[in-house]
């Protein structure tokens, strides 16, 4: 449902509910887009050569 739908009502119920949903979706979408872009940029800038171990995983050993 979008504000263009014929059933849409411009009242608080719809704004809050659909608003929060779209915010959540936007955050997820933005996160994904960011990751895509970052990956793309990293690859472009030649930083694809990471050490064979993923850093983050190495860190586990610390716990």
């Amino acid at each position, binding site marked *: 449902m979008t504000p263009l739908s014929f059933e849409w009502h411009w009242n608080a119920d719809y704004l809050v509910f659909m608003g929060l*949903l779209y915010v959540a979706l936007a955050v997820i979408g933005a996160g*994904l887009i960011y990751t895509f872009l970052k990956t793309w940029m990293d690859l472009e800038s030649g930083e694809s050569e990471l050490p064979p171990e*993923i850093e983050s995983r190495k860190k586990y050993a610390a716990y």
Partner: protein
Amino acid sequence: MDSALFPEGVKRCSPKVFLLWTLPWLALLAWGGLSAFLCLWKGLNQTNMSNIFAFAIWIVFDLAVIALGAGAFFTGFLTYVIGRKELKSIINAAVIIGFICYSGAVAMLGIDIGQPIRGWFIFWHANVHSMLTEVSFCISAYLGVLAIEYIPIILENRQIEKVPHLRLFGHNLHHIMGVFAATGTFLSFFHQGSLGGMFGVMYARPFAERWDFYVWPTTFFLFVFSAIAAGPCFTILCTKLTEAISRKKLVPDNAVQFLARLSGWLLSGYLVLKIIDTAVWANTTVPNAGLGLMDFYREGPYGIWMLIAEIGIFGIVPAVMLMIPQVRQNPAGLIVACLMNCTGIVLNRFVFIIATLAIPVMPFARFWSYLPTWQEWGIAMALVGYGFLLFSVSYRYLPVFPKEQELNPAMNG
């Protein structure tokens, strides 16, 4: 044969043994597949659901696995948002369990609705006042989040990791996982709540109705609370089962004990609220409807045992057990307490679904009984099969337990 796909430095059984292990789960899936086909092709007349039991075993399974799958969002929240680092050794498992539970539940819902090809109407013609709309929105969005959380684990497969693009993508996803985890927590919180709200708002059914707090009935909060109290226990049970089957230690005790202790406290907190809620309900809603508490516990098998079992035996007992360090540190004690905790929560969901519908509201309406058909069991069992299968495959090929190598040095090959 497939050892090239295994995570580095761990030992896995032979393909033959693995294949044998998957057979029962594949069989369950086949049973479920046949059932699903029948239900979709011939319609829901294949079930024993009825105009009285509009919701039945599938919804019980749905709500149960979603409650139990709450380990994912809650562990994710603790790991990424709060920053409990010891949980990193179990977060992957929690995420996979969550993914299994949610994807299974959504698939089951797709069969449960009478017009699956219209399922998207919920989003398209959303009635924002319906708790089920809230559930659908949050569940589907959160399933997306879970998928996002699952992807990096897949990308860590030894062979996939060799592809730089993918490895980098996974790496980057990992980096901002906190954002997803936070969103997931938000979504999950609302749908766990609205699942409870679904029943609490049925004000014309005094057995389910609960008083409102702002726009949500108390069941909204109770469901969230009970889910985060039970979810971690289910995660513990799954890891313990994996450990038992693989005969390896996979997760350090500190992670498990932390979750168990937390569960104990959460469960206690939940029970306090649940008891208050039940008392308030029994003294306001119930008499207002012209009924006494015991009027609800007269029909068929749905006696007062439900309340005693849910709150007492499978509530207070496991809460106490989990709070006592000696008990929860005892392997058997831990398992029993976790099992009882999970049972209590499933029982709670069962009561809210089946007992609510079974207890007639009109004085002259009669009591009907319900037993699922093999098709209904088939689809429910397919969820179990699917869970075992996906978890087994993940365990075999993905570094689900990052500490596995460290905890099992002897096996390092």
